[in-house]
């Protein structure tokens, strides 16, 4: 056992780091920018630089402008890039999930038209699956597509769409046949987000911010040639999109045991026995998450298929974050209710993350759905009872 790179991995890491050092500043060397417009331009420029140097999509075949690299090289790249102030956010979903779906199901014309431009950072993609009444049960979505000649006419509403306001294209899952059971009446399309009838409205989140969107479609027309996969095969296409979610390589999404330990030390509460026991639990959970990723990476490094252990990730991290923030606030007693970055320790990171944590427990699979996935796919337990399984969609209850 060791945590070392193989010689090949070390060589790739050195190459990646040299490239990053040439173009970016290490994280923490300058204050984080809150300039969103500029952020987008920077992200596009960085994407272009990466693509020109074959660092844009490590595992994609060279045919599509990728590096043709291994999954382990992809992990190493992610680790190294995350050490720098790399503006990657706007491209994560498009290149991680949407464009691979286009590559898998699109025509040659689609691939020629879209892949290169996305890779070069010229066009941004979003994913349009969730709806107000179709979250965990996304196959219950209602947005309708009705055929009209060589076109489809789209009406409906999507929700929680990251980056919809700056996206050029999206992959859109819609209902083309409400007379068949829900999974069988779905179809996937490429949609131009800049066309008339597409309206993007920011969602005012419980945390106060507006990072996500609702997208309304009113008589939006999509040519049949922009369909991905067969009519009625949209669910199969969507599963490929969801399978392409990137192997998580980042750290925990907020303050962790080290931050709250530092805070407790600075404020004289580190000697509290109850706190110390919790701190030990947080350390164990954080290590458990980090080291489990090492196990997954080991399998990749050995050229093996990783086991299912990575599925524990978000269940741990989201609850962990919520618990740490809650304790940090309670430790500050009444003062902990103040949410001003310039007045509070650590720029009020505990307060801010306290309001993010409920969203993290829901986004990308709720705790409950993730537990179902572990129970069903890892442990092999039966699926839940599905009363709508064989029912035509238009006879299903919905709300």
């Amino acid at each position, binding site marked *: *056992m060791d945590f070392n790179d193989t010689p090949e991995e070390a060589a790739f890491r050195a190459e990646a780091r040299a490239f990053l050092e040439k173009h970016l500043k290490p994280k923490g060397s300058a204050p984080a920018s809150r300039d969103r417009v500029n952020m987008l331009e920077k992200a596009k420029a960085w994407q272009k630089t990466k693509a020109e140097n074959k660092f844009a999509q490590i595992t994609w075949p060279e045919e599509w402008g990728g590096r043709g690299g291994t999954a382990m090289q992809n992990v190493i790249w992610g680790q190294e890039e995350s050490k720098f102030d790399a503006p990657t956010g706007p491209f994560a979903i498009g290149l991680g999930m949407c464009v691979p779906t286009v590559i898998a199901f699109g025509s040659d014309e689609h691939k020629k038209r879209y892949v290169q431009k996305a890779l070069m950072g010229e066009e941004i993609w979003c994913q349009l699956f969730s709806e107000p009444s179709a979250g965990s049960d996304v196959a219950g979505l209602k947005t309708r597509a009705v055929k009209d000649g060589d076109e489809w006419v789209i009406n409906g509403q999507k929700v929680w769409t990251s980056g919809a306001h700056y996206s050029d294209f999206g992959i859109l899952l819609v209902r083309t046949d409400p007379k068949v059971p829900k999974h069988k009446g779905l179809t996937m399309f490429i949609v131009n987000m800049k066309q008339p009838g597409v309206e993007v409205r920011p969602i005012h989140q419980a945390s106060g911010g507006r990072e996500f969107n609702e997208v309304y479609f009113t008589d939006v027309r999509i040519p049949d040639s922009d369909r991905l996969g067969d009519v009625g095969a949209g669910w199969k296409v969507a599963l490929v999109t969801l399978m392409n979610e990137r192997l998580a390589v980042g750290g925990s999404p907020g303050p962790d045991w080290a931050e709250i*330990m530092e805070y407790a030390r600075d404020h004289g509460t580190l000697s509290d026995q109850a706190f110390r026991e919790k701190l030990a639990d947080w350390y164990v959970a954080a*290590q458990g*998450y*980090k080291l*489990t990723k090492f196990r997954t990476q080991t399998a990749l490094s050995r050229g093996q298929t990783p086991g299912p*252990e990575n599925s524990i990730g978000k269940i741990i991290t989201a609850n962990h974050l919520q618990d740490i923030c809650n304790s940090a606030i309670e430790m500050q007693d009444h003062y902990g209710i103040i949410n001003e970055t310039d007045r509070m320790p650590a720029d009020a990171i505990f307060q801010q993350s306290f309001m993010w944590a409920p969203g993290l427990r829901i986004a990308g699979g709720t705790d*409950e759905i993730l537990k179902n996935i572990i129970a069903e796919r890892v442990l092999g337990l039966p699926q*839940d009872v599905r009363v709508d399984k064989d029912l035509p969609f238009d006879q299903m209850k919905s709300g």
Partner: protein
Amino acid sequence: MNFDFSEDQKFLAGEARKFLEAESAIPVVREVLNDDDKAYSEALWKKIAEMGWLGTAIPEEQGGLGLGMLEMCVLAEEMGRVLAPVPFSSTAYYLTEAVKLAGSDEVKNDILPRIVAGEIIGCYAASEGPGHPDPASLKTTFDGSTVSGTKIPVTDGGIATHAVVLAKEGSGASLVLVDLSGAGVTRKTLSTLDPTRGHAELTFDKTPGIRLGAAGDGASLNDQLMDKVAVLLAFEQLGGASRALEMAKAYSLERYAFGRPIAGNQAIKHKLAEMYVKNEVARSNCFYGAWALSTDAPEMPEAAAAARVAASEAFWYASKENIQTHGGMGFTWEVDCHLYYRRAKLLAVQAGGPKVWKEKLVRALEQKNAA
């Protein structure tokens, strides 16, 4: 990145599992459970010695296999899975590691080959009453040549041939090796929550002993020994927790209620998923402990403590929720759930309970931060 056992070590695990499933099946465990006069399975112990496992981490010059601590971890997990009713931990973890850590060459050459041959059974005598033994306030004393005092409880104390005793010497503490065939040893069998492992009260009255290491080094040696033992016990806990999850899964799939397997209910599915998460957190922390143990890494204190805390929690949760998943059946003597529940508690409090290890963990983090 190479954060997993090697193919050879995985092969060893597979062979050990086959052997233990055949030789340490539940009837073997129940023989010890149901017979108050039986503190271990002698037949299984003999076979384990014949397999050479007792010498896994003992150097070849002392007759061992000369493998390493990673191989010990692999075996520990398998022993934990089947609740092997033998003094493996007392002998191959506590006694062996104490002698390797602090024994003179003479002691090593005397004791280790006899451990390999299966002639010696060890035990570790630290506890003297409620609470974790504090080396600074022990009642058992060592005067340089003999030990006097009472230790309770001592796992495998009734069957051991040798004890490692934590005793007060002068103003400090020392680790003392005692041959239990010596004068002044009284053993009283104890009834415990886990009758599949023997326990006794040991009283020493001027019993001859040999100090392991220097006088007054007992506290520090004990800490080092406990770190090593903690990792190995954590692997036993991991093995038990994994088995408990398998049992819960198998039963929930075959037990029908309201016209379908109870495994289809989210309350059961989520409970088992939670077990899985805790077991994987434990496994990852155990691996880190194994790495630290096998490389003498400076991270050993926090790695051992984290493995121990995670594995104690995982086994506790899996063993209690395994009973719950089995419903009324799980509360019968005949169904094996309670054996895991019992063992989970023994392993959690032996060598220091979760509270002790959480405090050790935070202290290690504080020291790391101060450095």
